[in-house]
């Protein structure tokens, strides 16, 4: 009924399922789960090194909970024990729910309660243990770590070419430790100049190419803020680099610099040495602020959203409550920003530079959304994986910090739902263009579930360099191994691969919706329905069956009347073309 992650078995049936290298750490009977929808449920609770498993024993239909420990952000005792020795525990989750259990404390005070064991295994990093991803040794037919090869992806875009080269200046992550090893830069800029640019850009994140338009050669370039400071520092190599980016595109003598921040915040950054490109220093470049707020505002917005949707929804104030979270408004601003970038590249044929402060939060949101609009390759399942590997993982979105894998410090101000917000934007686009994406909603939900689960190595660490140092690809399984080994689960049957179609979504709030099947999926009344897809699949099966029968009959008829071909002239089967290849 719900979208459950496939690697768990249905908790309502059978016993505790165990993955390879998963071991039960502790279990307890007579635990009560206070379900906000159906009331208290008694059952048994088990904790493994990967999951929490609760199964009720006294209820029809059988009720169960099965969640990876990675989704827990906080486990705490609520209040003191009651006179009967009952203690309540509250579990806050990263996936929009809170769980509450009541359990009798063991009389033997030396024995640890199951919840103490839970606290230890839920936050392995804080307890000097390794994440389960490093123990999980499942073998899948596909190796997801091979999905992204930067040079192959740049080659697909036609790079290197006469204007752009692939530089090895960051081969050992010396230029910038949060950037990938392979960088695409204009041919006219030397590695030495790049080094000087890196001291002028925050965290050394220099302007490099993300994507190039196959026809107009207009480029999407990403960077971090320039270290202008209060004194208006300049860097002639940086100015030269931006000029070279502009010159690489013969179609336009102009360039746009999109600063994702509100102008107020960008100006305030000057106090701390940062800032934005001045018009004097960068002639022919137009600076546009996109008014997207910082990670703290986004975290707060999601917190409010959780308050509004979980566990109960106030029906008659639903819309104003939703508005007061500003969540969809942030989504709108991000989509609007990406739309402006895509428009300048597609309609204006101009190159663009995108940055925020450090260039690892709002910047990948904007560039990857713009790339989805511009390049249909990124709307396929594998293309989307490449996009995530490239724009998010290799360019150093700080997943470890933003998600806080295995870390008990739930108040850490570095946590923020930036990636969730991006996936939400993608979901909004799939709603508006139901036939333009090869993947379905379940694919996006699976990605988010495993963002937190710590079962796969994909979203661990903060940068390519860290992942290499920790040998993540060697010791863990990639999420894409799991996904690509059962692709049919994630395919959108309505997909039509318009190859050169640019998607311009509508960003008005009127066309944005709350992603109910993700944010409110724990509410049993919000049953997700996908009748369209189901009906479509049925029709596809029906057509295949009929097609087969027609072919059989035709073969028979052909055999019987081999001489007379006139009979088949008007056969309507000519109109039957495979759906997937339609253009």
């Amino acid at each position, binding site marked *: 009924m719900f979208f459950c992650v496939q690697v768990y078995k249905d908790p309502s049936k059978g016993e505790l399922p165990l993955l390879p290298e998963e071991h039960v750490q502790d279990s307890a009977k007579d635990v009560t789960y206070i379900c906000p929808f159906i009331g208290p449920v008694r059952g048994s609770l088990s904790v493994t090194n990967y999951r929490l498993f609760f199964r009720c024993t006294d209820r029809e239909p059988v009720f169960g909970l099965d969640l990876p420990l990675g989704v827990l952000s906080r486990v705490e005792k609520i209040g003191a024990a009651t006179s009967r020795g009952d203690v309540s525990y509250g579990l806050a989750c990263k996936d929009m729910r809170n769980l509450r259990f009541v359990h009798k404390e063991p009389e033997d005070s030396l024995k640890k309660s199951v919840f103490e064991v839970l606290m230890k295994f839920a936050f392995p990093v804080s307890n000097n243990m390794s994440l389960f991803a490093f123990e999980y040794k499942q073998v899948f037919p596909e190796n997801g770590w091979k999905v992204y090869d930067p040079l192959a992806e740049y080659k697909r875009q036609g790079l290197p070419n006469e204007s752009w080269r692939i530089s090895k200046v960051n081969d050992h992550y010396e230029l910038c430790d949060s950037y990938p090893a392979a960088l695409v830069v204009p041919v006219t800029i030397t590695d030495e100049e790049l080094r000087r640019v890196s001291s002028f850009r925050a965290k050394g994140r220099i302007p490099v190419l993300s994507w190039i338009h196959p026809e107009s050669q207009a480029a999407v370039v990403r960077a971090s803020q320039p270290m202008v400071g209060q004194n208006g520092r300049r860097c002639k190599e940086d100015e030269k680099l931006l000029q070279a980016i502009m010159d690489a595109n013969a179609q336009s003598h102009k360039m746009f610099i999109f600063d994702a921040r509100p102008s107020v915040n960008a100006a305030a950054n000057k106090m701390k040495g940062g800032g934005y490109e001045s018009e004097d220093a960068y002639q022919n470049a137009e600076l546009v602020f996109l008014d997207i707020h910082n990670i703290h505002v986004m975290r707060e917005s999601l917190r409010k959203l959780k308050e509004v949707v979980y566990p109960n929804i106030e029906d008659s104030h639903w819309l104003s409550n939703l508005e007061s979270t500003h969540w969809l408004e942030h989504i709108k601003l991000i989509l609007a920003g990406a739309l402006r970038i895509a428009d300048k590249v597609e309609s204006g044929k101009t190159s663009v530079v995108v940055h925020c402060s450090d260039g690892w939060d709002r910047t990948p949101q904007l560039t990857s959304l713009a790339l989805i609009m511009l390049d249909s390759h990124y709307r396929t399942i594998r293309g989307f994986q490449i996009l995530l590997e490239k724009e998010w993982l290799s360019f150093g979105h700080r997943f470890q910090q933003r998600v806080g894998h295995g870390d008990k410090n739930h108040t850490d101000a570095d946590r923020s739902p930036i990636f969730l917000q991006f996936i939400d934007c993608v979901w909004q686009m799939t709603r508006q263009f*139901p036939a333009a994406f090869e993947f379905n909603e379940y694919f996006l939900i699976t990605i988010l579930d495993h963002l937190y689960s710590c079962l796969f190595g994909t979203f661990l660490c903060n940068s390519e360099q860290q992942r290499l140092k920790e040998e993540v690809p060697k010791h863990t399984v990639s999420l894409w191994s799991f996904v690509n080994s059962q692709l049919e689960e994630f395919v959108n049957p309505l997909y039509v691969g318009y190859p050169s179609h640019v998607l311009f979504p509508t960003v008005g709030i009127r066309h944005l919706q709350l992603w109910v099947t993700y944010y409110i999926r724990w509410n049993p009344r919000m049953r997700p329905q996908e009748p*369209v897809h189901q009906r479509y699949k049925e029709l596809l099966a029906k057509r295949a069956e009929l097609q087969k029968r027609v072919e059989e009959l035709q073969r028979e008829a052909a055999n019987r009347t081999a001489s007379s071909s006139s009979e088949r002239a008007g056969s309507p089967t000519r109109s039957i073309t495979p759906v997937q290849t339609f253009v």
Partner: protein
Amino acid sequence: KHPDLLPGEVEFCSANPILKYTQDDLSQRGVFGTLFCTNFRVTFISDEKPQEKTDKTFKNKLYGENDIPLMCVDHIYGVYDEKRKLITGGLVKNKYPSKMIIHCKDLRVFQFSLTFSKEEDAKKIFQGIAHHCLEEKSLKCVFIWCWSHYSGCALFKASFPPVTQEDGDFQKHLDTMINAVAHNHLYSVKTEDLSESLPNIQDIQQSYNKFKQFFLIENSTDFWLSDVKWFSSLESSGWLDIIRQCLQKAVEVVECLEKDNTNVLITEEEGTDLCCVISSLAQIMLDPYYRTLMGFQSLVQKEWVAGCHAFLDRCNHLHQKDKEYHSPVFLLFLECVWQLVHQHSPAFQFSETYLTVLSDSVHVPVFSTFLFNSSHHRESVMKAESPLAQSGPLSCPTVWDWSVQFDSKAQNFFFNPLYLEKVKHDRAVRKPHKPKHQRNLSLPSTAFKTPPKKGFFKDETDSLKKMLRVKRLSRWRGSPDAPTATTREFFESWQHRPLDYHGLLLPCLDGPAVHIWMQRYLRWIPEVYILGGGSVAVMTKLMELLSQVQDLKRVLEQRDSSQAAKLDHRPYFQHRLLSFDSSGRLSSSFPFAYTCYRSFKPIIPTGLMQSLMVTDSLASQEDEASSVVSFV
């Protein structure tokens, strides 16, 4: 150039050149042409050669995109020296405005500049339109059985004037009524006074007036300004809440019939407004026949047209000043049906396009269906008018004759390609559900269940009478926010059963599940057109696939049977209406608005900064909480 007049249509006046503004931007661009006013419509004919039209598969034969049936005019505004004034009868004579803005009941907005034509022409056309659109024009029931559940219990509705004093006649009437129910149906009776628990028709009118303003968008600036407070604006209109309350009430009625097996009597003052809404909705939820196209039409005909809903007064066809009687009750019903269609689309044979067209047709004065206050009214008008007509009796087509408005190809859009048809052999079993048959079942021989509430039902009816006499009390009153726990349980237990699209159908009424009828309300607003997207992208694919399946079936049938006569006689729908090439360029507003004039450019929002002013300290914080600015 003149418009193609319908039979009996007369042209009153015209003016040229008139500039019709294109709606999509602030630049005062537009198209020059002639504006006409006839006895049926206001129409604009462009001077420019009609552009190469995209295949207009959904053309309305009576009126096109530049036609406004007179009854469809909601308000007219005149712009005098940059100031916008609402035009009423009195203002007209003095001066004509430089610009005329017409708001339509189907939410289109037209803007015409009158400054380019000759003064007298401009004056004449403005006065003509204002006169013919705005001037006033000249021109009861007992309780009714609505539907019977297969268990034998039934749904009734009744008009119920407020009880002020002991009224002998009324008392007698009431006794007969209740005895009739009690005698014919072996179950207890629950009454529900809708005027107690639901908003009244003025509340509905007020709410809708507020609500529709959000969709009458004149330019981009308006659009983006109103986008900011979109959700709270919607909520403040209360329209979605009224929809929820109606559906909620209908679910309660369904629960009584389905779960408790009690008779239900719904009442209100006139018995022809909310009674129609609730009884029709309950029947759609209970009976799959009413989810077919024919079934739905017969339901509207039975409950609304024959059920004496005062269309003439409620829709304000005559533009009377007296606002007391206006109320979009029928539209409210269609809105509720749309919610059901939206949530359970495979259960309905008709599409949302059908509902949208039906909601528009209410304002096309050609059809007799929605013109009168009751069938009695219709008959008397038809009789009275007929001697005046030169030839024969006056005949108005009914709205159900869709060929008057659309050719058969366009009518295909009324069918929902997702509809799951009932497998044939089950039909025989279902038959007893049909109301016609049910009528004879009012004394069920098979269903001698003991009533859920024990006791002789005379007691029940006595107490009921008492209750009705003393005070109109609602048995299940509750605020819309807190539906009684039992109703919630009823929904949840239904939800746990496997979904049968040909069985009982209940809507989810939680806040996030109630949606805006996007097709109806957003279809004229270019800012929200999704080029190459929207549900049309899915529907065209489905239609295509469906037609391929049908083609294959036909091939097999032809080959299978030597007796070609045995071919299927069910209506054969042409689903191959659009090719994929075109679907890539169609906008989400298809089939209503055409975007041939629009270039393939994104709609960039303006005024974003106003939208989100985060004032708390978080906004000014650094991204890196513990950030040490690396200034090496």
